[in-house]
């Protein structure tokens, strides 16, 4: 069930009405939420109804970690959780690969985000950063939380449990903000990301030999914007859907293409993923203070190589991860050498341009269907052919619009959310209807799958 498609919203409204009806009883609400989570999983395929079994193991491991004092026992319990979740993650990535895609149809939902989120629970418990929940219902509500199941953001289970532990609270401001987030997410996904994918990016990447260097370059920039609007559109809808249930999901994007170096890019792009990598992988890797460049360099490389492979077991994702790992190493080394706290404006501008183009260069590998496809794109860029016949005014207009929207200050969202919250209910409803009809008119019917839904 795509969360940008109509059936999801029918489902969401049904869940919300039931959930709100039980506003006086947290248990009832949790029961509704768990049923909704299970239905959401089953909607992808009934085989996903086996997932609560894995979640149950983590719940029991959590109870065990709450009571166990012996380090050996705690390590064993953590190992069980790691084996379960990493095994599930690796299995889902490897089975289609090892069977040449013959069984890919069985796994229509990627469980990467589930696995990452579940691991935050048992690892945090292992390090004593939280107490386990004793409510099975609450755990299933949080671990299988449907708005973030498909493509994140990756919340810490601890933070979801904290919210579920409180009494239900939902203000008119929350309602306005949630509807605004969903509206923005739909526009981002259906009007911008899908348009760019269908009318520029897909064509350039599928048949690069048919395009000039200029068109390929614009296609690569277009992909950078398509990916941002696709993923941040998903995140906005997920955050809006969660907010309707009184749950705040963490922020995932902060105008990433304005970053002045790759390190800052990762503080702005897919924030919950990079924070997960930082807290649960990078920080855990051993480092020697004597050789900071070497030890941090290798830690960056390991972290982002694995981060790359998380997206899929392929050479293209491996190259993408290695490139980012190396770039972070370079930034780290540069910072140690230069030690300039706040560079001049021109240095920031130059850094921003270099960073954006580097990120776009790595997106070529991220998007390409194979290394050969990526090399075709790069060869096309290097051919220095200048025709721009395929860049229609509409495509260029959408690209410029997308670039401008990407740069909107966060404050504008807060102001808009305030307006949305204060607006009468009928204005809110009619505004949302106008958004839906506008999308149906401009973009036709339907929605392409989310890019990150594949990971």
């Amino acid at each position, binding site marked *: 069930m795509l969360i940008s498609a109509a059936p999801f919203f029918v489902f969401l409204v049904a869940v919300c009405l039931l959930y709100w009806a039980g506003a006086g009883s947290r248990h009832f609400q949790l029961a509704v939420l768990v049923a909704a989570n299970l239905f959401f999983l089953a909607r992808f395929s009934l085989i996903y109804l086996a997932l609560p079994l894995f979640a149950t193991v983590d719940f029991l491991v959590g109870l065990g970690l709450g009571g166990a004092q012996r380090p050996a026992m705690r390590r064993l319990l953590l190992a069980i959780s790691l084996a379960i979740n990493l095994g599930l993650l690796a299995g889902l990535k490897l089975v289609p690969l090892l069977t040449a895609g013959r069984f890919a149809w069985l796994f229509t939902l990627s469980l990467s985000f589930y696995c990452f989120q579940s691991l935050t629970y048992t690892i945090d418990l292992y390090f004593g950063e939280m107490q386990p929940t004793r409510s099975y219902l609450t755990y299933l509500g949080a671990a299988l939380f449907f708005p973030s199941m498909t493509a994140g953001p990756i919340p810490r289970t601890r933070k979801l449990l904290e919210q579920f532990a409180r009494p239900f*609270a939902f203000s008119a401001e929350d309602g306005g903000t949630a509807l605004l987030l969903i509206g923005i997410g739909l526009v981002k996904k259906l009007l911008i990301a899908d348009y760019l994918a269908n009318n520029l990016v897909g064509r350039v990447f*599928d048949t690069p030999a048919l395009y000039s260097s200029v068109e390929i370059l614009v296609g690569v920039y277009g992909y950078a914007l398509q990916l941002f609007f696709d993923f941040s559109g998903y995140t906005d809808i997920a955050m809006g859907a969660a907010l309707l249930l009184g749950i705040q999901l963490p922020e995932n994007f902060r105008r990433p293409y304005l970053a002045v170096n790759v390190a800052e890019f990762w503080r702005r792009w897919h924030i919950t993923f990079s924070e997960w990598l930082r807290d649960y992988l990078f920080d855990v890797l051993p480092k020697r203070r004597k050789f900071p460049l070497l030890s941090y360099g290798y830690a960056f490389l390991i972290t982002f190589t694995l981060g790359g492979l998380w997206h899929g077991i392929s050479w293209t994702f491996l190259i993408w991860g290695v490139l980012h790992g190396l770039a972070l190493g370079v930034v780290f080394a540069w*910072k140690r050498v230069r030690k300039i706290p706040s560079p001049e404006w021109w240095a920031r501008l130059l850094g921003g341009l270099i960073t954006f183009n580097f990120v776009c260069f790595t997106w070529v590998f991220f998007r390409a269907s194979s290394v050969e496809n990526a090399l075709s794109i790069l060869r096309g860029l290097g051919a220095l052919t200048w025709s721009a016949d395929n860049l229609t005014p509409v495509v260029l207009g959408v690209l410029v619009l997308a670039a401008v929207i990407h740069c909107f200050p966060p404050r504008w969202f807060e102001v808009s959310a305030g307006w949305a919250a204060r607006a009468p209910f009928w204005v809110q409803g009619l505004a949302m209807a106008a958004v839906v009809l506008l999308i149906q008119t401009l973009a036709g019917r339907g929605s392409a799958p989310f890019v990150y839904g594949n990971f």
Partner: protein
Amino acid sequence: MAIFDFSEHGPATHGPDTPAPKPSGAGFPFKTALAIVVLAAALVGWRWKLDHGKGIDPNIFAETFTLRWPQPPAPIVPKTATTRKSEKLPQISPVFTDDSNSLDPFFAALWKLEQNRGQQGKEGGVVAILHYGDSPTTADLITGDVRAQMQNRFGDAGRGYTLIAKPWAWYGHRGVEISDHGWKMRTGVGLMREGIYGLGGAAFEGQSGAWSKFKLTESQQTAVEVEYLAKPGGGTFEVDADDQRIVEQTTDAGIQTTASVHVPLPAGTKVVGIRPTAGTVTLFGADFRRGTSGTLYDSLGLNGATTTVLARVLQPVLWKQELERAAPALIVVNYGSNESSFGSFVHKQYAAELRLAIQRLRQNAPGVPILVMSPMDRGERSGLDEIETMSTIPEIVAIQRQVAAETHCAFFDTYDAMGGDGTMARWYGASPRLVTADLLHPTPQGASIVAGLFLEQLGLGYNRWKMQHGISLPAENPATPEKADTSKAPSQQKNVKQHAQKKARTE
């Protein structure tokens, strides 16, 4: 020390990392619920009263609450589409029909090529095929594969016809890299009136300073024939080979007509250049030949083209001259993808438009067999997360099949050969992807499959023709529709061969 915590400060965040407890609003959120009710009512009202295609589709409710077990995907090309061989003559296969045996002259010409191939001193001549089509043809994807395989089997007579310049970046012709500058381009797309265009439906007007270069990347070509518009007050252009001028040609003439100049190319020519040298010239295309017998497969695609280009746009007198020069043994008419966007046109006018196109082709290329090739599947995303076939595509295919039968043309049903309904969903989901994200154009891999399907069916037709003429089929031919009768005596085969040759000459 952490991965992203260098000395600088990150941008300010909006939204708390740890959500704070909220003080109010613990009951049923009536305002938000009412907003949703208004939203739903507006969407229902819009669909009910204003636009039946927008708003809330009632099917969504059933779809939302339907659960399914996972289903394995259908094969890329269902076996039923490719393995349905002819049970009895005259039908070739369900996806390839030629009930009036209209392709016989073409098959006879191919047979002549096949017979004489490799025999010293014997020439089978040149069998030219013109393939008129829309954007997939423009990029020479399907046609390029068909050309390669036909030339591999029957001989390579040359790269064939290319436009003088690239009207679109994705215009291409396999084996010829085209670069150009300074041409004013016109095509017959989107017009409803006759105009002056070349064989390929495009014209390029240029003055001194304009140029085109054709880099020959595959086989050696021995000559190029440049097609141009001769007219009173015409200018001149030159043709060079590897920067050595070969010919300077005037386009000045007493009356307006299409003309061509045959330019022999020195052995080993890598780049052919064409440039206006004086006045204004209007050029149409460059036809590369090898001077050997074999097949030519001219890819005549125009981006956005519809059947109307043949039915109404190409000026008949000039088109007839161009067709006579090209001397095709077969003309493929391959439109329909662009028409599929206009349902009303398809319902009301498409059949008449196709009949008119075929009638005009018959008038301008009398006796040349015509093969109507249906469009590929074309997908669109439905409101239910799925890619489905555009409803007009099967309708167009049915009309084409009917009109082809009425007008005694052969017909290849690309859509059903690919697997019919839902093909785009399967092909888009394949790895590697077989169609692009617009669910209309094939990727090179997809084009190769379509070319293979077309050739397979054409091979079935060829084999049927051979059987009808008592020619035994080669045992290794994979496209043998039925058991080949190999018992015929050599003398009988010789008679059949002579009959075929005679028939080809007659046609």
